[in-house]
Structures are given as C-alpha cells and as structure tokens.
C-alpha cells in the first residue's frame, strides 16, 4: 500500500472507472451504487447499495470494484452493503443520462411521488432515444434487466429500453 492514504476523491476517481456490467457506458459511481469510499490503516472500505433487491449484477460489481482497486495496489478492501436510503434513479446525473440516451436507453424520468395513487395511471410517453419522437408506446414495465422497461417507437419503429424511474 502507498504510504499516503488515498483520499475519498481519489477513491471515487478509481471507482468511476468501474462500469455497470449491464449498462457498460456508465460507471457504478454515476449510477449512485457507490455511496462512500474511505481508506485508513486497515484498508479501503467501499459502501455500495443495490439498485434493485434482486439485481444479479451486484456480485460482479463487487468483484469489479475489488479488481479496480487492486490494480492501484489497494488489495485490502471491505465492501459494505447498505439499504438506506433506498437507491433512486434521481441520483443519476445529467451527464450520465446523456450517455444512456446515446447508448440507446431512454434515461429515467421523474420519480412519481405520493405512492400508488392509481393502478390505471398513464405515464407521459417516453422520448425515443434514437429519433427523439414522443410517439412511443410502453410495452412492459419489466425489461431485459430489473431496472428497465420496454417501449416501442411508432415513428422510427425501433424497440428500446427505458431506465425506469425508481
């Protein structure tokens, strides 16, 4: 280990190089999975939170975090998982949203507040990440991964994923 302990910012910079295994254009920091990182004499502690309770990528993410830190000579790593505050798509910043869109995934809209107001609510149509049209149709709120919904664009006929608001 280096004699000087890495700062929180330095650790976050390293972790920003760890991409989400399912959405490889944004990092686990940009996604808000990494909640904290600190180094002391005992090693590095990284605090993460799962996006969805059953997200099967969490084990891979832990391994990738360990590998990225090990590359910088940081091999004594503890990963803590926390559940509060609950992960939300609100933590995904504007730059990461643009990366999602460019990758063909519609970025998450605003999280609906006030719980389950109605079962029959109609969401505003999501803009197609390919052609920008809002003439799109929600096919299913459950997509290729737990965090995505399936839409189809009627303008360009392209099916696409949406990172669904949570």
């Amino acid at each position, binding site marked *: 280990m280096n004699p000087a302990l890495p700062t929180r910012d330095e650790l976050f910079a390293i972790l920003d190089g760890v991409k989400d295994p399912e959405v490889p254009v944004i990092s686990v920091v940009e996604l808000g999975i990494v909640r904290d990182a600190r180094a002391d004499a005992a090693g590095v502690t990284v605090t993460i939170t799962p996006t*969805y*309770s059953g997200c099967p990528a969490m084990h891979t993410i832990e391994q990738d975090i360990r590998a990225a830190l090990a590359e910088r000579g940081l091999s004594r790593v503890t990963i803590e998982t926390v559940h509060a505050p609950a992960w939300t798509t609100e933590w995904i910043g504007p730059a990461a949203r643009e990366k999602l869109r460019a990758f063909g995934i519609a970025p998450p809209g605003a999280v609906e507040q006030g719980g389950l107001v109605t079962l029959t609510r109609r969401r505003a149509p999501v803009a197609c990440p390919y052609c920008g049209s809002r003439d799109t149709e929600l096919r299913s709120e459950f997509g290729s991964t737990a965090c995505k919904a399936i839409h189809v664009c009627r303008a360009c006929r392209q099916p696409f994923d949406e990172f669904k608001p949570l």
Partner: protein
Amino acid sequence: MTQKPGAPSASLASPAAARSAPAANPLFEYVVRLGDDRLVLGHRLAEWCGHGPILEEDIALANIALDLTGQAAALLALAGEIEGAGRDEDALAYFRDETQFRNALITELPKGDFGFTIVRQFFFDAYSYLLWEALAGAKHAKLAALAAKSLKEDTYHLRHSGEWVRKLGDGTAESHARAQAAVDALWRFTAELFESDAVDLAVAKDGIAVDHGALAERWRAIVEPVLREATLTVPAAPGAAATGGRRGRHTEHLGHLLAEMQIVARSHPGAAW
C-alpha cells in the same frame, strides 16, 4: 454465494414447541415470515421462466421473481443477524424443512394457469404493498430500510398484476372464466395474510410490526374496485379460511417446492461458487 449448513435453531426446531410456547425470539420469527413469503412466491413465479404466455410476460414474471428472491435474501440475512446463531440467508433458505417454513399458504400453491398466477400475485402484491408502506416507519432501522426499498419495487409489481387482472377479467369469455375461477379458489387463502398472533403482538409492542388486521380493510379498498372493473365477482362469503403457514402447517405443495429449491445446496453442503 456460499452455502453453509446451519444448525437448527431452538425456536424453529420443533413445530410442536412453536405451537405451544411463545416464540423465543418474536422479531426473528416475524422477519422469517416476511422472508419466507417472498422466497416461496419468488420460486413459484420463477417456474414461469421459459413458459410465459408471451415473451414480455416471461420476462416480467422472471423480473418480479428476482425482486422477491432478492428481498427474501435480505430479509433472511437480517433474520439470521437477529437470531445471532451464525445462520445466514442460505442456511435459512436451504437447510430448514417444511414445518420450519413460515410462509402464508397462498404463496406455496402451485402456479396453476396464467390467470391463477396473476390473481394470486395481485392479492399478494396489494397486501405486500400496504405492509411495506407501514413497515417503512418501523422502529427498527434495518427492517425499515428494507421496507422502503421493497415498497418501490412492489409498486411496479402491483401495477403489473392489477393491470393484468383487468385485462383477463374483462377479456375473452375464456380469460374471464379462468380469472373468476382463480378469484374463487384463492379468496379463502387471503385471510391468513391479515392474521395477528402472539409473534405479531410481541413485535408490535416494540413499535416494529404493524397490525396486519388493520391492513385488511385497505387491502379490500385496492382489490375490490379492480375486480369489479374487471367484471369479476367479489366472492360474497370469505369461505373457510385456509391458514396454518405461520405456524409451520403447510399444504402438501410446499414439500415438493422445497425439494426442488434445496436439492443442490443439500447435495453439496458447503459448496461455494
């Protein structure tokens, strides 16, 4: 994931003892009940993987199964921590027998046809949604955190099953008949979700659990309008309530489910992958 065979705990080792004496650790019992409901129902839903009526539903049911199994893993891990006997979520999931499971009977019934699965899911989702909403305020930081997180996921589940109940009930004569048959068959299994016993009362006294009975009226306020809108008939009488799961008395179906779920872990105890 690591498998560790767990020693049976004092409180769950003997169903007879659990019936006659108050649970040694009510909070452990309570959290195991929450975990077992989701573990067993998650497994039932996962049975649809590769068998869904349409691709989107195959994916949706698998996603919901994943959420429930993930919630179960976190809850059983918390239960193991509360118990303090060294059992983790895998020990609790794979190395307890049928009579040591505390899930409500409605979660273990075979998946049936798509109509049965959807109606069961709708009944459970509405209950689970209300339960998490209440438990998000529990005076137990870790349980409250899991409740707040699960509530967000269950909101999607409830909207999914509610929308499908409407489509099936107000669909074709065939889908209507199957949905109505499911409602009629499942109705008497719903009462168990709102039962309170000594475990609930002991935990409620500490400001952790909520009064499940008080959720029943709100559950009906979600469920009944959807059934009516789906042109389905709300059963007039509750029927003889089917209950016993919280005390380890199950239908014949749970043993078969566990045999499939636990076989790999029990055949290779201590295996890691």
